């Protein structure tokens, strides 16, 4: 079963002559353990697709299923619980709370879900350790570098029993080395079974994905084929730099 499925999703903002069709019938399936990148130019509907997939916004038409469960049939409370427990979000501008330390930021979704503070923070610390931030847990966001802040944001997105991570330009303004570190972490989360959707206009980020879909004017127009063995790059004449 897909971890995320979009069926004929349409999204229209406004009405009449000024209506903007952001999504015009998108079908997408993301299996557990897979990373899918959505590439497209500004205004192609990438961010709308992500917010609808993450239940932060409702589609005008169509259905979104998370782990087989249709969002349209869930109560408001059930959707909120799903967002807290099952979905992790990574945004371009990190969205860390400035008054909380790194470990408190990571533990926050667990605490909101009713897990006692001490246990939530212990779990948060474990995830920070896994991401190489063992010594940064007690720092506040403004004491961290951009790369460290984004790693904390990823820790928060994967903490607990999250099965779906949704990332919007996750390496934002980071340099290419830090951007690569961010994508490496996301891909490692996928290897542990998390499904991830990354929207980006950056081909270097997208190339970390198992599958890249191309969005144009609110429609998926194309996608990459299953990947060939990378070793073929080393033996094919004419493919060398």
């Amino acid at each position: 079963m897909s971890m995320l499925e979009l069926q004929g999703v349409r999204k229209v903002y406004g009405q009449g002559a000024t209506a903007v069709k952001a999504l015009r019938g998108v079908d997408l399936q993301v299996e557990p353990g897979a990373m899918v990148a959505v590439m497209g130019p500004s205004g192609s509907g990438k961010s709308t697709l992500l917010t609808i997939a993450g239940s932060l916004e409702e589609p005008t038409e169509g259905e979104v299923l998370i782990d087989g469960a249709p969002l349209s049939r869930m109560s408001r409370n059930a959707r909120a619980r799903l967002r807290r427990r099952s979905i992790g979000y990574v945004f371009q501008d990190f969205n860390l709370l400035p008054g909380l330390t790194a470990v408190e930021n990571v533990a926050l979704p667990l605490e909101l879900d009713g897990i006692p503070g001490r246990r939530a923070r212990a779990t948060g610390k474990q995830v920070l350790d896994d991401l190489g931030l063992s010594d940064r847990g007690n720092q506040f966001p403004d004491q961290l570098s951009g790369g460290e802040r984004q790693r904390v944001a990823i820790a928060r997105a994967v903490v607990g029993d999250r099965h779906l991570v949704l990332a919007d330009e996750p390496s934002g303004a980071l340099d290419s080395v830090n951007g690569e570190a961010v994508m490496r972490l996301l891909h490692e989360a996928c290897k542990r079974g998390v499904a991830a959707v990354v929207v980006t206009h950056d081909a270097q980020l997208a190339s970390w994905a198992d599958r890249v879909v191309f969005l144009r004017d609110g429609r998926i127009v194309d996608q990459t084929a299953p990947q060939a063995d990378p070793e073929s790059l080393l033996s094919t004449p004419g493919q060398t730099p």
Partner: protein
Amino acid sequence: MSVKHALLALLSEGPKYGLQLREEFESGTGEVWPLNVGQVYTTLQRLERDGLVESDDTSEEGPQKGFRITAAGAAELAGWLRTPPDLSSPPRDELVMKVLVALRVPGVDVHEVIQVHRRYLVELMQQWTRLKEDEAEYDLSLALVVDAELFRLDSVIRWLDSADGRLKRAAADKAAGTTAAPATPPAPVPLPNRRRRTGARG
């Protein structure tokens, strides 16, 4: 890729045998550039002829023959490292030509042509990235080579994205009757006529 200068670079570390040079060349370039042993010896012979390397024993050919760099070879290597490759005139890029040609062929959707190439390039980048993920963490040379290739492919995709956007705007302007330069022909002037005037950029 200059095999000649790569061999000089390896010999600048100290005297080496031909087979050793081949192995070190391949590992030093992330094993992305395969090199056959014949190429190594032919190049070494030319280097020796030109006085850029010396061999231990001129009478005996084979794997046990050692080579070392000469002062002239070291000077040649130092000069080569600091000489920029020729990037001054635009290359005759096949992909650019295909997009320009697609504009003129009736019934061809240039955006679809662009997407075919974009997808291919992203697929290639996925393979390079996987190689980097799997192996380059432990192999600095390979990481550098893979990064170079990823940046090169990325720049081609950026050009395709830019071309896609520019063509869409041009079509929208045309539809709205606000073409920027109404006196020029609707399709672009064929590139070969302009190439000679493009000149050195840099």
